[in-house]
């Protein structure tokens, strides 16, 4: 493909459909040969905006990023940070307001524009966040010593321990039924 490098916009406009798709395929193929951004000692994190700050979530736990559904089914006797239940891949999944959960406040959360589906082992939850930002590489974390859901800070962003968060959230939601 002689026009792969420094392809002028005009040339792009002149392409036929077939030429365009050939070009797109070549670009995709070329990008897959780019060396990974992280190596064995680093892990990729996604920055998520919350009204009271930002947090970082390891990409390896994120299954999907979706716009939040219009209707979230409320469930009685649940913690205040649980927004409700949505269907994901045909199964009901609990959705939590990440801001309420992390900062433990009962204020009305800022409008959420993104729903992150996170999974660890057999637990799946949806996390509502105001927005998502760039990804960044951070050193790999040793999970064994971890006891807090917020396991540290990178610059001003909170680094979340997702396996711990999932277990803790699920236990608290389950406990709600006992108090019912």
């Amino acid at each position, binding site marked *: 493909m002689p026009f792969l490098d420094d392809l002028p916009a005009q040339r792009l406009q002149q392409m036929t459909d077939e030429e365009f798709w050939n070009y797109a395929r070549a670009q995709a193929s070329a990008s897959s040969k780019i060396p990974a951004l992280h190596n064995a000692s680093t892990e990729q994190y996604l920055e998520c905006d919350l009204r009271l700050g930002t947090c970082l979530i390891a990409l390896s736990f994120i299954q999907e990023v979706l716009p939040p*559904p219009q209707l*979230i*089914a*409320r469930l009685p006797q649940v913690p205040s940070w649980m927004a409700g*239940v*949505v*269907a994901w891949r045909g199964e*009901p999944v609990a959705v939590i307001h990440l801001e309420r959960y992390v900062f433990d406040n009962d204020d009305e959360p800022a409008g959420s524009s993104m729903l992150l589906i996170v999974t660890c082992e057999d637990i799946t939850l949806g996390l509502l966040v105001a927005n998502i930002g760039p990804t960044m590489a951070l050193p790999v974390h040793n999970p064994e010593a971890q006891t807090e859901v917020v396991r540290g800070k990178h610059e001003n962003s909170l680094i979340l321990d997702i396996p711990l968060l999932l277990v803790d959230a699920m236990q608290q939601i389950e406990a709600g039924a006992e108090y019912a």
Partner: protein
Amino acid sequence: MPDPFPFDHSKLSPEDLEVLRAFHEMEDFAPKDTSTTQLPEAVKPEIGDEEEDMLLIFAGEADEDIGTMREALRQMEQDDSIDSPGLFTLQRRAHKLRGAALAIGCDSMATIAHHIEAIAKRVKVGHIPYMTGLMALVQGVHALELTLESVVEKEQESIAPLLDLEKDLEALGVQAQEEIPAAKSDEEQKPTSDEQPAEAQDETIFPEKNLTIMHPFDRTRLDHLLLHTEQLVEQQAPLEDAQKQVAAALQELQAAQARLRRLETLFSMLSYSGNNAFHSQDVQLERPPSSLVERILRDAARRKGRDYAPKERATAPMMPSAEDALWDEMEIDRYTETNLLAHSLSEAIADVSTATSKLQQAFARLEAVIAQHMAKASLARGDALALRNMPCRRLIERLQAAVTLLATRLKREVQFEFSGEEIELDQEILDVLAEPLSQLVRENFAEGVQAASSKDDSSYRIWLHARTPGSEVTLEFGFSLPVAGGLVDVLHSALKYASLSVSLQRNEEGGITLFLRVPRSKGVVQGLLVRAGEQQLIIPFSQVRRIDYAEPGQYDTLYSLTLLLNFPEIRSGKDRPILLLERNADYEPQLAVQVDEVIGQIEIVMRPSPNYLRRPGIPGMAIDGKGNVLLVLSLPELIKQYVKRCQNTGELPEVLQPAVEEHRQPTVMIVDDSIFIREAISQTLSYHGYQVKKAHDGLEALERLWDEAPDALLLDIEMPNMNGFDLLHVLSARPTRPDMKIIMLTSRFSDKHKERAFALGAHDYLTKPVIDEVLIGTLRRLLEPIGV
């Protein structure tokens, strides 16, 4: 004078010791050191002159019980098997007699009855050989008869028969009681079949644990198949949405096509006028092609505050010169560029028309194919669901076998009638029901026959009729005579597992009939789609009797659905629909629930919620075609939970239309099958200013509960037809008066009975014989906070 019959305390069971302790606490029972006190040969029961009638009532009742026990012994002799229903009858009658004897002060009779009860239990579990046990039981019943004779004839309870019995038991090597471990008695450790705690019963009938599953294939795969076929059906809504979008796009295309046609006409006119101008060599000004265009341009200019003036147009660069146009050497048609453009435009429009027409045809075909696909997906789902179903014949055969076996054992004619054997039900539900219904035949019905056999020789009937009113199946399971209580208790686990509802009614033959309402298929729910606040929810049809839009005021109790769900209340308008809940029986109150909107009806597959999302009153969830999660509700359970929450917090339930109550004397209903207990307690309560109602079993209490509105129930456990636990089950599922207090008054004092009663909603637990002050104190303590 030395005591000829020294009393050995070590031979007393914990129950005996408890009874003695209770008596010692009574004011009129002087505390004595029984280890040194010589018991007299004959003990006169503490009976005053005014209580002579009570003694007669007791004697009559005890005589009847002993008669039934005799009949049960004869049955045992014939059966020669530990499965003999006679054992069950003996156990229950002895228990009943023990309670009444304790209450009137005949402690010798109470002890003998207790021995009989304990021996029967031990024979049943194989701890005592059958024939030895039978001999011991014969001696026990004989001792009871002799003791009762002494009470009736001499008005003194002779202790000699008890002592003789204990000697006989010793000679037979029969221990009435098990060795008692320090912490728990064997009775508590190894419950007998009729006393199994709920967990143990769950094990016997909970299908996931050990039920014989008849599926010839892996059930997980069947579940997957059901899920996938349901997902196929769920595609209907997105497909319909996509269809609508394509239809809208097609309409836009047709509109654009119409606009193009109009432009084509205009363009042709322009082309024609251009040619004319060309031919007349008068092509100086570019005029709008029509008055319409001119008007549009003029209006636009006016809006911008300018005058409209047609612009001059430069000569078209491709336009041939006048000379070229005039000279036509070959005399052939000449086309200008405008002509060619107009022609191309016409051709393009024709192509678009053809494509649109083809698209319309393809879309019509697609619609037909989608409709066909959805119909087939629906069929596939129906077929997959049908894999779970079996005809009711399967259940009928099990019951028929149980009835035949029983009739053989009893040597009585017992007819079994049935109908609706081809009606299909979910296999799991059939399996879950088979064992408890058979148990009702083997034990509860058998005891009813034992009790009746001493009076007449008539034949008996059991029937099972399956019917299909709407989306459910109703199973009518009837007995032609009164049966032993505990029906609901026996069915409890099955009802809970399969989300079934049950009601009990007396039938015309004087017996009792159970009505079980069963969903046709366990997975599919058919119901109303309603809105509460902003949320859509499903309420199965089986729970709703009628939808009403009338003003609140004609219901016994009206709740708000948002309140039941603990959602924020959003009052939205006056004419909100009211759902009248289905009543299991005519005597039940009419409960109603107000919702914000009834959207329509829905048939959808209900999935069990993941464990951590399970909530009482929400048996499952469904996912609609748009991917929204819909909660499936059980309104009776939600009401029950709401009332319970209020009780825990000490608040009165907030109801939109409370039941009308008038100021009245505190009323207590005594529910006990013993006439003596009813009369004795009644006298005490009347003396202390209570209005008293009496019911001889749980069913009678239930039938009268709403109309007579007692403030408290004094509830025995063991009663025919509907026992105390049965009534608690029913009341907890269908709370009538949320503030009614329930006090258990029973001779059962083990922790497991207490725990069960409290778990089912009892407010206090007293054991017989109860001291008047304790009874009155308990009533006052419970009734005072609610202002009675």
